[in-house]
C-alpha cells in the first residue's frame, strides 16, 4: 500500500501524463512514511511546464508550477515559497513577524508578484487552459 504522500505524487504524475506532452520526471524521491517530492517537466502546446511539490511529515505541501516560453522565459508561475515580497504584500510592515510563512502567490512575466489562493496541480492546469 502506498503512503499518502507517495500516493499523491503518483496521482500527480498520472495527471501530468494525461494533460501534458513529453512528461519527464527530473527528480523524485520518497522517504516513507511521510515525505515525498517530485520535480517534473512537460509540454503544453509550445510552452514548457515545470512542476514541483514536496509533501512533508506534518502534512504541509509546498508547490511550484511554472510555464516557460520557447526561449525559456517565465510566462507565469504559481508557488507558495517563503517569498519576502509576498509576505510584504500581505503583512506590510509586520512582514518580519511572519518570517518563514509560506504564502501562495503568482509570478507575472514582468517580475511582479500577486497574492493568490492556494493552488494545486489540477487548478494550475485549469488556469493554463483558461488563460494561455
Amino acid at each position, binding site marked *: 500500500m502506498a503512503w499518502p504522500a507517495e500516493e499523491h505524487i503518483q496521482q500527480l504524475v498520472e495527471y501530468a501524463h494525461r494533460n501534458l506532452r513529453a512528461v519527464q520526471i527530473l527528480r523524485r524521491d520518497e522517504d516513507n512514511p511521510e515525505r515525498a517530492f517530485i*520535480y517534473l517537466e512537460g509540454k503544453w502546446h509550445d510552452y514548457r511546464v*515545470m512542476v514541483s511539490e*514536496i509533501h512533508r511529515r506534518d502534512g504541509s505541501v509546498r508547490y*511550484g508550477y*511554472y510555464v516557460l516560453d520557447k526561449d525559456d522565459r*517565465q510566462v507565469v508561475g504559481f508557488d507558495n515559497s517563503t517569498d*519576502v515580497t509576498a509576505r*510584504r504584500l500581505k503583512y506590510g510592515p509586520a512582514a518580519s513577524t511572519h*518570517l518563514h510563512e509560506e504564502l501562495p502567490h503568482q509570478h507575472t512575466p514582468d517580475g511582479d508578484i500577486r497574492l493568490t489562493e492556494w493552488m494545486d496541480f489540477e487548478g494550475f492546469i485549469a488556469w493554463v487552459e483558461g488563460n494561455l
Partner: protein
Amino acid sequence: MTTIAIDPKYIDVLNALGNVTERVDEAIRRYTVEQIASEITRYRREAAQFEVAYGMVYEVFCDKIAAEEGFTQNIRKEHPLWEADLNAWEFYATGLKRRLEQLENIHQEKKP
C-alpha cells in the same frame, strides 16, 4: 519495546552464541546504523549539488529568501526556477538532518 517473531531456525544458533535478546538487539542496531549511514551518504551527495549551485547551505538560503528582498530578486536572475529547486533541496537537507539525529540517538543509547 516491540515484540518481534524470530524464525526458530535462528534461535538455537543465537543461543549457542550467547544471549538471544542481546544478539538480536545488536544485529538490529548494526543493520539500522548501516541503513542510516547509506541514506546519509545519499542525502549528503544530493544536497551538495544544490549547495554548489547556490553557494550556501540550505538553512542559510532559507533565511536569506525569507528576509532579504534583494537576495530573492538577484537569485531569480541566475536561477529563475529556484522555488522548484527548493523542494528537492529541502527534501535532502532536512532528511540528512533527521538521519544524523537518528544516528546520534542510536549511538547515545549504546553508551552505558
